[in-house]
């Protein structure tokens, strides 16, 4: 299981990376915004994407849309981990095809639950 973590703050990437490691996912890579993440996704055989929303360059919502518009990536599970907390934004992310949405600040438990739920659903397909 190869996971890409996209966030513009290195500390947040590190926190998510550590939490994923505790869950047993050690094969992770990092990108600091959508612009650098997209080419990595297109060439890197990733199985899962965890992305922030608010980033310089390409935002997380635009990255999500780009992923869903790409024939080879459109089934990639995407979890959004973001401080964006407006109802409109959550609805927008859902419409754009997000698989899970975690608002910051979050607990290790919340992240774990969402990731497990997404994997359950992916494996059920």
């Amino acid at each position, binding site marked *: 299981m190869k996971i890409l973590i996209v966030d513009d703050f290195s500390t947040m990437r*590190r926190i998510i990376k550590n939490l994923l490691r505790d869950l047993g996912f050690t094969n992770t890579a990092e990108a600091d915004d959508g612009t650098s993440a997209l080419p990595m996704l297109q060439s890197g055989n990733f199985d899962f994407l965890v992305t922030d929303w608010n980033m310089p360059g390409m935002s997380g919502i635009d990255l999500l849309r780009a992923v869903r518009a790409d024939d080879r990536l459109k089934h990639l599970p995407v979890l959004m981990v973001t*401080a964006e*907390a*407006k*109802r409109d934004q959550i609805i*927008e992310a*859902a419409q754009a095809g997000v698989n899970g949405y975690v*608002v910051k600040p979050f607990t290790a438990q919340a992240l774990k639950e969402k990731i497990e739920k997404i994997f359950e659903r992916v494996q059920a397909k």
Partner: protein
Amino acid sequence: MALSKDTGQATAQEFEHSLKDNARQLVDLLEQGQFGEAILVIHAINMARDRGLYHEVGQLTRALHNAIVNFQIDTTQALGDEAETTRISDASDRLDYVVTLTDKAANRTMDLVDASAPIVADLGQEAAALRADWDRLQRREMAAGEFRDLYKRMGDFLEKTEHSAAQVSGQLNDIVMAQDYQDLTGQVIKRVITLVHDVEESLLNLVRMAGQVDRLAGIEHQKPTPEAKKVSPKGEGPQIHADKREDVVSGQDEVDDLLSSLGF
């Protein structure tokens, strides 16, 4: 700002008073057929209006100048001279410093946790292994040779625990020390908040003074039509007072409820 709104209001009121007096005089003169005199009154009204207007524009200009000087906004660049530090760019630097400091503290804390975690995990594993053998000893399932080995391992473990406990305790202290950024960044942020308040107040004063000019000049502004709010693709960052707002979720539970209402 030294130039208060009161002088501006006084000038405007003075003009309005003299306008009323002059108007009555003008009507009287016109009714009496003294057109030459009437023209002079009209001229006087114009003069008073212009005087008020010049006065207000002068005040506005001076206030604007003061605001620029107060915030040390860099005009030298626009004039082609050497650039100096301004209060605004100083504030940006200060906020950058906050970002650097919080980043360093977060990484330092995580480094220390990363260093402590394996020590604690190691102790736990060894304690579990020792306890299994200890249980066997209590059940008298242990041969004498094995016991001698356990005896030595127990001694080693106690020594190691003592050493590890000291190490982890030191690292916990360092984690506490890494939180000293809160004090420093708090001070910096408070200073920037003061600056933002000052800027806001000065801008409000300028708007008030410009309003006086508008009143004297008879300028009316069209109210901008409010644009329909759209979700910004860039995002808005963390929301404050989330618990008091309808359009914002206040935690993961509300996100989950919202998503499940959408069929997730």
